């Protein structure tokens, strides 16, 4: 199975070590507060280390969000698979889940004793707010790299309004938006290949 990926004619990027991969995801696994995991992963894997480029990361991110499963686990699986195949996927997922698993059991025990204290909710709320900041910073960075054409920005804005503001369920919205967007991109790609 994994050997099939070898015959790609594109030169493989410099191989990322399994230990650094594990290290990055172990830390990410303890830091993914407030549903902002994609932002932290983007920052560590793309912005700071350059292991993946923006486009590879974004497509993986969307795949991770659309398919079933928790986003942090799916994005770890995708990044690990891209960098080091099946072993990398397993290591990245373990790194993402095991620390969080340990922390949540400890928090569960602590909460039984201290959960009534308002300070606990207050500090956790602040950490979640900074997580939203990470999401917005990443969103601005990738939005600036979208092609300035008649299709990409309107699709991005429409998806944001319908899911974020109007709160329509994400899955049906995405099931409509993705074929539209990909179909358009396919036509554009084919046009570019045929020399217009």
């Amino acid at each position, binding site marked *: *199975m994994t050997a099939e990926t070898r015959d*790609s004619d594109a030169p493989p990027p410099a191989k990322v070590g399994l230990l650094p991969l594990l290290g990055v995801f172990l830390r990410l696994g*303890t*830091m*993914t*507060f407030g*549903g902002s*995991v*994609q*932002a932290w992963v983007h*920052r560590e894997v793309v*912005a700071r280390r350059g292991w993946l480029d923006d486009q590879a990361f974004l*497509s*993986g991110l*969307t*795949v991770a*969000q659309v*398919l*079933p*499963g*928790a986003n942090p*686990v799916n994005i770890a*699986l*995708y990044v690990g*698979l891209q960098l080091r195949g*099946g072993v990398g996927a397993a290591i990245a*997922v373990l790194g993402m*889940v095991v*620390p*969080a*698993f340990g922390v*949540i*059991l400890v928090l569960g025990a602590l909460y039984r004793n201290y*959960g009534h204290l308002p300070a606990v909710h*207050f500090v*956790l709320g*602040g950490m*979640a*707010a*900074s*997580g*939203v*900041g*990470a*999401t*917005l*910073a990443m*969103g601005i960075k*990738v939005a600036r790299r979208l092609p300035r054409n008649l299709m990409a920005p309107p699709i*991005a804005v429409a*998806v*944001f309004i319908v899911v*974020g503001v109007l709160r329509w*369920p994400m*899955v049906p919205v995405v099931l409509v*938006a993705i074929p539209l967007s*990909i*179909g358009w*991109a*396919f036509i554009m790609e084919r046009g570019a290949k045929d020399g217009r």
Partner: protein
Amino acid sequence: MADNRLLGLALVFAPLSILSFGGGQAIVPEIQHQSVVVHGWLSDAQFTDLFAISRAAPGPSTLIAALIGWQVAGLLGAVLATLAIYVPSSVVVYAAASWWQRNEGSLVRRAIERGLAPVAVGLIFAGAVTVLRAAHADALALATTAVATAALYFTKVNSYTLVGLVALFYLAVQAI
């Protein structure tokens, strides 16, 4: 007895894993129904507490499965529930991502990448709004978000440092 409980955990969480589109928020009501009403593992109040912890803790919110598993059958239950909630969906994602990797450089994959990007951008901003709304963000939270956004956009500040500083700041505010 213990075996029945472990089996029950697996049978509740493994199917929900496949249904957890959109990161797991969609299956929370079903987790509540199964663990409180159908199996009677938890009271409503216990479930609400565990839900709050899973939202505040690092890691995926579906780790509530681990908390429920712990409640039902101890550490083994926590491990089993966690495997049940992540392994089935991971198999699906692994197959999809493998196809993805084999087709590098193809016209179809380039079109998919270019086509997915604007959808992802829309979802990223929608996610930020959803989290703020779920947290009932007040002026302080919005200001925190604004400062964090600027710091992360314009500098290379370490993510962990930033979150740590914010936590310390909130502790200080709380102490005053």
